[in-house]
């Protein structure tokens, strides 16, 4: 596709994406840090629901022969080291590379610094990439998937994954209703009054 229509489609899809991030509150630092400290499960719920939905729609599209899958190649050291560093950054930012932009749109000023840091990190990696390639991005088993490992077809595995995730989410929701994780200002903040000027912070009553 040429650049101009692709940009229009990207903008339209991004607006929906950002709208969903904001309504889910998953762009809130309180939700991300809370998730990583195991007392807020909003991020996991949004993430696993989106994975399950994606698996179902891709299984259908693939089943009808409408799409080709594009799994990324496996490089064990790169996936492990990159994942660890990415995760550390996500916790300290209280955001993912995509939700930084939602933070900026919603009005968090520190997210502008996260964005600039992210651009700097991407440029630093670009300069390092030729030197890192022989260390991290060589060899490996290639674009392997769980279909290769199990011999089961993609639609069956993807629908199976979605089914397992739905059961896990039902149990998670029963154990911990989503509204309990919102907080008074829908930001996942349940802190002491000194940190929040609006002191009436109750755990089970989200502002609506």
């Amino acid at each position, binding site marked *: *596709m*040429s*650049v101009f229509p*692709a*940009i*229009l*489609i990207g903008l339209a*899809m*991004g607006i*929906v*994406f*950002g709208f*969903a991030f*904001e309504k*889910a*509150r998953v762009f809130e*630092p309180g939700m991300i840090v809370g998730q*990583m400290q195991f007392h807020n499960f909003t991020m996991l*719920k*949004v993430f696993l629901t*989106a*994975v*399950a939905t*994606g698996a179902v729609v891709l299984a259908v599209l693939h089943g009808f022969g409408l799409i080709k899958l594009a*799994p990324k190649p*496996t490089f064990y050291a790169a*996936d492990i080291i990159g994942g*660890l*560093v*990415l*995760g550390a*950054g996500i916790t*300290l*930012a209280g955001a*993912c*590379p995509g*939700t930084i932009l*939602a933070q*900026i*749109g*919603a009005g968090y*000023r*520190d997210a502008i*610094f*996260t964005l600039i*840091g992210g*651009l700097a*990190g*991407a440029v630093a*990696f*670009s300069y390092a*990439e030729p030197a890192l390639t022989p260390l*991290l991005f060589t060899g490996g088993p290639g674009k*392997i998937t769980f279909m290769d490992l199990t011999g089961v077809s993609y639609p069956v595995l*993807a629908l199976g994954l979605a089914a397992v995730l739905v059961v896990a989410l039902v149990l998670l929701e029963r154990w911990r209703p*989503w509204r309990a994780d919102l907080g008074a200002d*829908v*930001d996942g*903040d349940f802190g002491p009054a000194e*940190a929040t000027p609006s002191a009436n912070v109750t755990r089970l009553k989200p502002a609506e």
Partner: protein
Amino acid sequence: MQACSLRAKAWSPYVAGIVIGLLQVPAFLLINTALGASSSYVTVGGTIAALFDPAITQIDYVAKHVAPTGKNWWQVALVVGVALGAFVSMRLSGARRKAISPIWGRALGTANPLVRYGVAFGAGFLMLFGARIADGCTSGHGLSGMAQMAVSSTLAVAFMFAGGIATAFLVLRRI
């Protein structure tokens, strides 16, 4: 509470997650790619860096990402759209945010905004450096790669949570 009104401050995470997952349909059918976000930082960062150091485009990795292709600039438009969508949603619901989330004062042990800005810059740097090493982020590996049953993505996401959890307990204070 109206569950999914455009003016609501919060939707069920399941409704929002389904909306996000459905975005794979136009991504695959129209752009022939999967949802992702972190490549766009190379496209934008590389384009800006080339103004100061034109030689950066001689690195194949950069040349590939800054090229005027639909896929490259679709993703840049996607993340710009994320900011617009979040802004519109926030204005409709009135869920205005403070300059800095109140959790950071407790997590970092100081309310000094300069400390938060410095940490945010470093966090962004780590996030994108790590995402580019892993060749994907929470979107590209997490949403898209796991839904495609890729081994690389499952591994990267497992270690992403491991790194995130370790940092949350070892570096930050409990919020």
